[in-house]
């Protein structure tokens, strides 16, 4: 087991899948000679050539729309959107086409494709290089939405995504690209299944649901409050859509309290669905209100440092929310 960064895990997953299956190719802006603006595709152009690592025109609709066509033909495209904030020009292709193709053709045509994009704030990116976009897609039957929080999952889930016969949106917490390191098996064949959430810290006093960078902070916060005698269970949601209701409800059954954390705006964010799930099917297990800790309802993360700090959820804010709910 080698310790690698999250972005290196992403790179390795693509490298191995390109090597394993000739149908796989990568398309996106600056993914070729440049190796991606986050260096997630470094070396792939040199190794697999310009027909399998394609520098697209500066047009996300093209990246995704052409990817869908190639998938219909039988290829396995990995489409890179340079920042999640720039996925909207491709929204029509994702929502109207990729998501609905299988259903609308009664199973005749499928779209096995991956759309990768770095997301999230805290890196000085301002309004348009910091966004969380998952909630636009966790509402759309036909799509799968995956957000890894560590190198092991990133590599294993991305490999599963490439092999999945459905369109998978794969959002990578860019602040964690180099910050989050972890061990990854040397076995080229390990994968992590799309679907199940994972309990990453067992606890008795409350369940904290998180994903991506917020999961990382949630674990830190749990250690902090542990010293104060609060024993928190952490659930890494990982696959956001379809929702793993079972794991969510199982955890609440045990702890009777739920805190959901994400960096995306509060209202209409993914946390709303987790809360609604618990309020509907886990209601009898609850002995406190369901709490959400999320980004404030302003358009996106502002640039200037103090404002960014005001916006972003971090380990301290999570610890405070835990203390607050624990004392209910």
């Amino acid at each position, binding site marked *: 087991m080698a310790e690698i960064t999250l972005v290196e895990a992403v790179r390795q997953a693509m490298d191995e899948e390109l090597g394993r299956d000739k149908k796989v*190719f990568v398309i996106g802006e600056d993914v070729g000679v440049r190796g991606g603006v986050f260096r997630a595709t470094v070396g792939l152009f040199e190794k697999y050539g310009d*027909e*399998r690592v394609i520098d*697209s*025109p500066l*047009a996300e*609709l*093209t990246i*995704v*729309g*052409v*990817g*869908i*066509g*190639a*998938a*219909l*033909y*039988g*290829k396995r*495209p990995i489409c890179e959107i340079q920042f999640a904030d720039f996925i909207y020009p491709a929204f*029509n*292709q994702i929502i*109207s*086409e990729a998501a*609905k*193709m*299988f*259903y*609308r*053709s*009664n*199973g*005749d*045509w*499928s779209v*096995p494709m991956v759309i990768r994009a770095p997301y999230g704030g805290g890196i000085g990116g301002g309004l348009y290089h910091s966004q969380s976009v998952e909630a636009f897609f966790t509402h759309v*039957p*036909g799509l*799968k939405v995956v957000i890894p929080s560590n190198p092991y999952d990133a590599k294993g889930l991305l490999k*599963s995504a490439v*092999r*999945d*016969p*459905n369109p998978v949106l794969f959002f990578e917490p860019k602040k964690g690209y180099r910050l989050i390191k972890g061990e990854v098996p040397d076995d080229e064949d390990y*994968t*992590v*299944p*799309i679907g199940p959430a994972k309990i990453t810290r067992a606890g008795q006093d409350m369940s904290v649901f998180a994903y991506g960078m917020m999961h990382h902070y949630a674990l830190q916060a749990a250690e902090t409050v542990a010293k104060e005698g609060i024993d928190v269970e952490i659930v890494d949601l990982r696959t956001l859509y379809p929702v793993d209701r079972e794991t969510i409800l199982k955890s609440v059954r045990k702890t009777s309290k739920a805190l959901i954390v994400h960096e995306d705006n509060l209202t209409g964010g993914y946390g709303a669905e987790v809360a609604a799930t618990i309020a509907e099917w886990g209601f009898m297990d609850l002995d406190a209100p369901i709490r959400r800790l999320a980004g404030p309802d302003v358009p996106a993360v502002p640039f200037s440092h103090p404002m960014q700090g005001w916006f972003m959820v971090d380990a301290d804010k999570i610890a405070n929310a835990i203390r607050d709910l624990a004392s209910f």
Partner: protein
Amino acid sequence: MSLSNEKKKEMFWIMLLSRRLDERAWVLHRQGKIAFHISGIGQEAAQVGAASAITKGKDWLVPYYRDLAMMIAMGMTPAEFLMSLFGKAAEPTSGARQMPSHFSLKRANIVSHSAPVATQSPHAAGIALGIKMDKSDQVVLTTIGEGATSQGEWYEAVNFAAVHTLPVVFLVENNQYAISVPQKLQMAVSGAAEKACGLGLEGIKVDGTQVFKVHQTVLDAVVKARQGEGPTVIEAEMYRLTPHSSDDDDRSYRTREEVERHKKKDPIILAKNHLLSEGLLSEEEYQTLEEKAKSQVDDAVKAAQQAPFPKGETAASPVYAQEVNHG
């Protein structure tokens, strides 16, 4: 390479059959037996001319909702179409999930298309990219209305195909209107063919009421694409002889005189006269074809009416393709 007489007659037959089928759909709608129809009347020459320029079972078609005659040319049966009009379970595009005329026919490499216009164009480019990667000699034919070429989606698809010299033919069926909106409110050029110069590929305008002319024009582009010489935009000029759909009333935006004037260039009549004048068809043979068309459509209506509706709850799937083994 000029068309054989047999092939010419066959093309005419497809046009005629499609026309009678299309007309029957209007009748069924007036009778209240179906809820919706969107018609290809007036566009059969372009559609059959183009379809007969690609190789069935080998090449790819990415059509749009007006392509009834094109679909018939590619092997969709009248009964299959009629089942989609009635919303019957066995219709082959979507199991009656989609509205009629949202075509798909897996067995013929015809990709499912949706209602939002122009979304199909990037798919055609993507299929062509796959073909190029595999060094296959397949080609892709894709169609669109002239109004829909106003979407950035079309521009991006053609641009990508041009940059990568992909084997795809972008056929624009210019029927003068997008519902009520005339071409001059869509674009400042003389037509979609002229758009090609800004994208670095050949753009050709052809009389879309003349089936054999369209055929030759598309065939040339298909041959070019097959030889690796890249994409072409072809604009077939014609006229939408019916309202936009059964929900439309075209009297609010065009005069009856205008419509009547264009009926003189009805592609069925033009093709018939062509065959008559070349001695490839006699009036008697023509009558036989008419009868054959009528009886095929009659039979198809019967079959479609008798076919079962889907059960409501079958709509619950299939949302996702089968999982692969992740382990």
